C-alpha cells in the first residue's frame, strides 16, 4: 500500500456544551486507502469526518492536508468532497444539474461538464437518468447520484457519512461491493463512517475503531477481528466471550477455574488480563471430555448454526455450533490454544462479554435512545 500520508489529525479535541466528543485524537490517512471510522453512536466518528470536511473547527489540535495546515480553510476550498448521510441532493435540480453543480461553480466549460457527468452516470450505473427529478428516485438511486455528484469534482478524498444507513439490507450489500469497486477504479481515498461492523470489515483497507471520543484500535479488518486490543473492540466487532483471567507465565493462562495453554506472551507474571474466545472457536464435546463443563440454558437456530448459551459456573458463554444440543443438557467445552486471545486490562474490562442477559431485542432497545441523543448533539 502507498504510505504517503494525505491527511494527518494531530491532537484533535472537540466538545459541545462542555461535553467532550473528541479527546486528543491522532490519525493518519494514507493516499488511495479505504479507511473506515467505526464505532457506536456518539463515539465521535461523524465529528471527525466533519472536521476533515471543514464543517467543524477543532477546539484544539491541527488538521494537515498534504502537509499543509488547513484548520481554518473553509469547506469550499478543500480538495475533499462529502457524501452526506441523507444524501442532501438539491431538490430544485434534476439529476444532471445535481451532478454538474460542483463543476458549474468552478466555471467548467459546458461541453466538458456534459462529458464528465455522462462518465459519472456510467460509473454509478445511472445512464439515461439525466433529466429525472431527484425526488422521484429510489433511495439507492439517490445514493448513486450523491456519489456521482461528489466524485465528478475529482476530489483527493471522498468522505462518506453512513451512506448506506438508509438502504434496506439487500441493497446495502450490493452497494458495499459497488462502493469498493468505485474506490478501486478511481483510486480516490475513501473515508467511510459507519456503526455497522460487518460493513467496516468487508470494505475497508484500514478500520479505525472509536469509542468515547478516542481511537481504540487501528488495523486491517483481520487484525481487528483476530487481535482486538481491549474488551470494547472484542465485543463491538463480532460476538465474544470475555473472561477475567490471570497470565501465569508466557503461553499459560488461567480462567474459569482452569489452566489453559495459549499462544500469547509478553505479559507480566500473574498479571490480570481479559481473555477473549470467539463463539465459533469453542467445540462442543461430551461432558467428561471437555475442559469446561456447563448447562445449556438457551438454543436459537440461526440458519447456518445454532447459537447456544451455556452456563459455566455462573458465567454464560455463547457458542456457535452446527450440532444441535438440547436445552437443559450438560455439555463439555473444548478450546484450542490458538482460539484464546489475551488482552491487557482496560477501562472497558468487565463491561462486556457475558451473555447472561443476552437478547437481540435488548441490544436494539439499548441503542435507540443513544442514536437520538447523537443526532441532536451533532446537528
Amino acid at each position, binding site marked *: 500500500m502507498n504510505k504517503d500520508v494525505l491527511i494527518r489529525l494531530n491532537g484533535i479535541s472537540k466538545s459541545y456544551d462542555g461535553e467532550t466528543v473528541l479527546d486528543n485524537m491522532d490519525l493518519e490517512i494514507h493516499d488511495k486507502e479505504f479507511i473506515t471510522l467505526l464505532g457506536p453512536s456518539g463515539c465521535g466518528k461523524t465529528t471527525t469526518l466533519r472536521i476533515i470536511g471543514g*464543517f467543524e473547527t477543532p477546539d484544539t489540535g491541527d488538521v494537515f492536508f498534504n502537509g499543509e495546515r488547513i484548520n481554518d480553510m473553509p*469547506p*469550499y476550498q478543500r480538495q475533499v*468532497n462529502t457524501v452526506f448521510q441523507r444524501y442532501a441532493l*438539491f*431538490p430544485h435540480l434534476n439529476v444532471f444539474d445535481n451532478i454538474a453543480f460542483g463543476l458549474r461553480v468552478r466555471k467548467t466549460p459546458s461541453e466538458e461538464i456534459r462529458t464528465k457527468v455522462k462518465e459519472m452516470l456510467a460509473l454509478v450505473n445511472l445512464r439515461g437518468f439525466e433529466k429525472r427529478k431527484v425526488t422521484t428516485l429510489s433511495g439507492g438511486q439517490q445514493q448513486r447520484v450523491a456519489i456521482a455528484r461528489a466524485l465528478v*469534482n475529482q476530489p483527493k478524498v471522498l468522505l462518506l457519512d453512513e451512506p448506506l444507513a438508509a438502504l434496506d439490507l439487500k441493497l446495502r450489500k450490493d452497494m458495499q461491493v459497488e462502493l469498493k469497486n468505485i474506490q478501486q477504479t478511481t483510486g480516490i481515498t475513501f473515508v467511510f463512517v459507519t456503526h455497522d461492523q460487518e460493513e467496516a470489515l468487508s470494505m475497508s483497507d484500514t478500520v479505525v475503531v472509536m469509542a468515547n471520543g478516542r481511537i481504540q484500535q487501528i488495523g486491517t479488518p483481520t487484525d481487528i477481528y483476530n487481535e482486538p486490543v481491549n474488551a470494547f473492540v472484542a465485543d463491538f466487532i463480532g460476538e465474544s466471550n470475555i473472561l477475567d483471567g490471570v497470565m501465569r507465565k508466557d503461553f499459560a493462562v488461567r480462567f474459569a477455574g482452569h489452566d489453559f495453554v495459549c499462544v500469547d506472551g509478553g505479559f507480566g507474571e500473574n498479571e490480570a488480563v481479559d481473555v477473549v474466545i470467539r463463539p465459533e472457536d469453542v467445540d462442543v464435546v461430551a461432558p467428561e471430555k471437555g475442559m469446561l463443563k456447563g448447562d445449556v440454558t438457551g438454543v436459537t437456530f440461526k440458519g447456518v448454526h445454532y447459537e447456544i448459551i451455556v452456563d459455566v459456573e455462573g458465567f454464560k458463554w455463547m457458542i456457535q455450533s452446527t450440532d444441535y444440543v438440547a436445552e437443559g443438557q450438560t455439555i463439555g467445552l473444548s478450546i484450542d490454544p490458538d482460539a484464546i486471545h489475551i488482552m491487557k486490562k482496560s477501562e472497558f474490562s468487565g463491561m462486556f462479554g457475558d451473555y447472561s442477559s443476552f437478547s437481540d431485542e435488548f441490544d436494539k432497545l439499548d441503542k435507540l435512545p443513544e442514536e437520538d441523543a447523537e443526532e441532536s448533539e451533532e446537528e
Partner: protein
Amino acid sequence: MKNVSRIYMTLIFLLLYAPILVVIFFSFNEAESLSHFEGFSLSWYAELFEDDEALTALRNSLILAVVSSLSATVLGVIAAFAIDRTKRKWVARAMESVSNIPMMNPDIVTGVSMMLLFVGIAAIIHSQPFLGVWTMIVAHTTFNLPYVILSVLPKFREMDRSLSEAALDLGCTPFKTFFRVELPYILPGAISGMMISFALSLDDFVISHFVSSPDFRTLPLYIYNQTVHDVKFSMYALCTLIVFAVLAVLIVVNVTGSFRASRQRRKAGQRQ
C-alpha cells in the same frame, strides 16, 4: 343531518352575502335609489371612471402594493434567514416575537405608533411633518414583514442543513450557497409571502389612514373620504368592481391550485 347542515350553510352564506348582493344589484340602477330599480344602467360606473381622483387612488394603491410587498419580501427573507441561523434559541424567539408585533397589535395601534414616530422625528429634527408616499411605503413594508417571515421561516426550518453543507462542499462560498441552494429552496414561501403582502397592502385602510397625507391617497382612503358624509352610488359601483376583482383572483388562485393538485395526482397515477 346532511340537509340540516346544507340549510345552515346556505342561510349563513346568504346573510353574509346579502348586503354585497344588494349593493351589486343597485349599482346598476338607473335611479339613485335603493328601493326602486328603474332600469339597467352603467351611469354610476361611468361617473366613477370619469373621476380622476379614483383613478389616481387606484394607481397609488397598486404602486404602493408592489413596492411594499417587494421590500417586505426582501427584508422578510433576510429576517427569516437571520432568525433561523441564530444559535441562541431565546434570541431567535425574541427576534421572532418583535417582528410579529405589527401582526398581533390592532391596526390602529400600529398606525398610531408609526404616525407618532414620524411626527416625533419631525419634531426632533425641527422639520415639517413629512407624511406621504415614503411613510406609506415604510408603514406597509413594516406590517407586511411578519406575514413574509411567517411563510418563509418554516421553509428555512424544514430545510436539511446538509443541503447548505453540500453546496459548500461542492465549492460554493456561503454567499453563492445562499443564491444557488437556499434561496431556490425557500422561494415558494417567499412568493406566497409576497402575494399575501400585496393583498394586505391593497386592502389596508386603518394604518394608511394615520400615516398618509392628502397628496398620496390610496383606494381605501379614497373610499373612506367619499363615504364620510352621504351615500354615493358611484361608490356602489366601485364596491362591485372590487368584489369582482377579488373573486377573479380567488378563482384563479383556486383553479391553478386544483389544477396543480390534479396534475400531481395524474403523475402519481402514471408511476403506479
